[in-house]
């Protein structure tokens, strides 16, 4: 057993998610976080939007969308796929850090991928956006490429 699975979460739900791109054939999973959602009681619109994003993100590979306890479902999926490593894209959410720690504690290797940076920043942010902007504006306004290939005008649903 040395395979990998990709865990997709609500902060990175794209077919171009860095963890997915780094593992082009790995099975992928997205979990509707049952304890969190049962307490939060979001609108159905939000959950359906996530579902549509997740369906597209996992298309073309072995994929699974589940409801349950995130860490338990990811562990079960890794076991089903005979994987020992979980690849995931970083999030700043405290719940993400907690889940990564729990997955590691369960014996899985967790590899965290970073999103392409918008600006580089080290240390604590200032307390006001205006000071932040003054310090990052030049970099923020410097493109690193031409962006994604956009669909043709006639490509509508």
């Amino acid at each position, binding site marked *: 057993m040395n395979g990998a699975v990709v865990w997709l979460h*609500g*902060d990175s*739900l*794209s077919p*171009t*998610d860095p963890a997915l791109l780094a593992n082009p054939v790995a099975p992928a999973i997205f979990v*509707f976080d049952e304890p969190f*959602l049962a307490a*939060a*009681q*979001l*609108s*159905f*619109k*939000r*959950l*359906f*939007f*996530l*579902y*549509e*994003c997740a*369906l*597209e*993100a*996992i298309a073309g590979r072995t*994929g*699974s*969308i*589940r*409801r349950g306890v995130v860490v338990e479902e990811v562990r079960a999926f890794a076991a089903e796929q005979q994987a020992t490593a979980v690849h995931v894209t970083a999030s*700043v*959410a*405290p719940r993400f850090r907690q889940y990564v720690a729990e997955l590691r504690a369960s014996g899985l290797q967790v590899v965290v991928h970073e*999103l*392409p*940076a*918008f600006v580089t*920043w080290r240390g*604590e*942010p200032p*307390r*006001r*956006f205006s000071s*932040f*902007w003054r310090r*990052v*504006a030049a970099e*923020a*306004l410097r*493109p*690193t*490429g*031409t*962006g*994604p290939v*956009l*669909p043709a005008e006639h*490509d*509508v649903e």
Partner: protein
Amino acid sequence: MQLRTDLTTRAEQVAYLAGALDGLYAGPATPAPIRGGRRAALRRLRAFDARGYARTRNDVAKRGVSALSPYIRHGVLTLAEVRDSILSRFGHTPDTEKFVNELAWRAFWQLVYAQLGDRIHQDIEPAKQRARVARRRLPPEVIEAATGLVCIDESLHELYTTGYMHNHARMWVAAYLQHWLGVDWREGADLFYRHLLDGDPASNSLSWQWVGSTFSHKPYIFNRQNVERFSGGEFCARCPLASGGCPFDDSYENLALRLFGVSLAELEGRR
């Protein structure tokens, strides 16, 4: 529990998910008109014309905004690729620079969230001014979008039915709830978070704190003139309170005094 991924039409997916996620959502099982997924995100990005953005972005009627926030919030599009696409297609202009500046707000909120974690859901700083109105819970007329104020009700109705609200309207509603009604910002933020497709803990809670002055140097207020100007007069033209009783129909000087008991200069921290 494994969910189905083989249904092809949106209607089938909606009907299925409504049952499969039973107990995990509140309200009707209707989808937003805004579609999820990378393909829809790229279509939206292609459709956005940044020319005129600096002038029209605050106009609730003209809608000069990109409406990309649901996709950016869920990582379907990254800030970097949106920036790159807009600059490469429209060049460096005051409009695209303003747009990138708005993208940077999200980067800023995320850095604050990384630093403070769940403490973003508590007052980050003491309020610079507190409204004089008695504190109260979120009133039913807000939940029902039936306050009688067309600018507020139509903005709330859009939120409840589409999962989206224009940024300027968010500022009006957030200020109205906090400074006119006396609702704690956490209750308002919770309401928005439950409905907004772009609902993000950091952007949402920190923006509510920005309006309330617990993460800014002054409370944000607005008046009728602002609503008229940035809605093309549409809301007020249909509002039964336009001819009398509009709580926003006053000068900023008078509103500062009425709502906070201070002069406008004091409200803005100028003395």
